[in-house]
């Protein structure tokens, strides 16, 4: 979904400025996968995690730790994520949702490719924390 306010309750987001994450909105699975694979090969990002946030909307998290300068360079080279990138640059950090939002389900992990020991591990830890929080607070 393109930018949407949190209208009901709250929503938890994963924050980082150490690695590359992408929010790919309004595209098919094939294209999201193609973008992830291309970036993986071009910048040697070690591995990626492909996540579906909602219908036709995907998140990609790359494993390798990068400098903020490199992250900016890669983000702005990607036309599909440029609108999201502008908002993230304003904050100075990249944020992706890891919990329910406005009644929509939490993001679902679809695919793991390559190494998962750096940023992907951090993301998955936060993802599990968000799951636990939802269990505790919403039961």
């Amino acid at each position, binding site marked *: 979904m393109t930018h949407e306010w949190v209208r009901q309750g*709250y929503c938890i987001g994963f924050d980082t400025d150490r690695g590359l994450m992408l929010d790919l909105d309004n595209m098919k699975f094939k294209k999201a996968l193609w973008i992830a694979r291309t970036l993986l090969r071009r910048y040697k990002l070690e591995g990626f995690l492909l996540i579906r946030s909602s219908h036709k909307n995907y998140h990609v998290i790359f494993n390798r730790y990068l400098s903020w300068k490199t992250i900016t360079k890669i983000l702005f080279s990607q036309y599909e994520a440029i609108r999201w990138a502008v908002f993230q640059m304003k904050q100075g950090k990249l944020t992706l949702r890891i919990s329910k939002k406005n009644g929509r389900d939490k993001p679902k992990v679809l695919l793991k490719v390559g190494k998962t020991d750096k940023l992907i591990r951090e993301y998955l*830890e936060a993802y599990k924390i968000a799951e636990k*929080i939802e269990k505790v607070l919403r039961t």
Partner: protein
Amino acid sequence: MARRKRELKVYGTRRRGHRERWVVKGKGVYREVRRDSRGRLISARKWSPKKPIGKEVFTEVQPLIVKYETGREALEKVREAVREWEWVDFEAES
């Protein structure tokens, strides 16, 4: 070796409390009340029109940033932050 601090963000429209009219011993009184997302009472305190409304009654939209090192710490901190506030539905003015 100290572990690197990681961050989670909690988004949404939130407020510390709101004003409610209660009937106590047949008389109407206003109270500054905090309730959780299910409407259960967390706390209540006196509210008087003579005194200005506490600043914390107003809604806020800035995300809460929770810094953590371990998963358990994050769970506790986020739970505390979520429970501390009333999370209200966002209504756009038009």
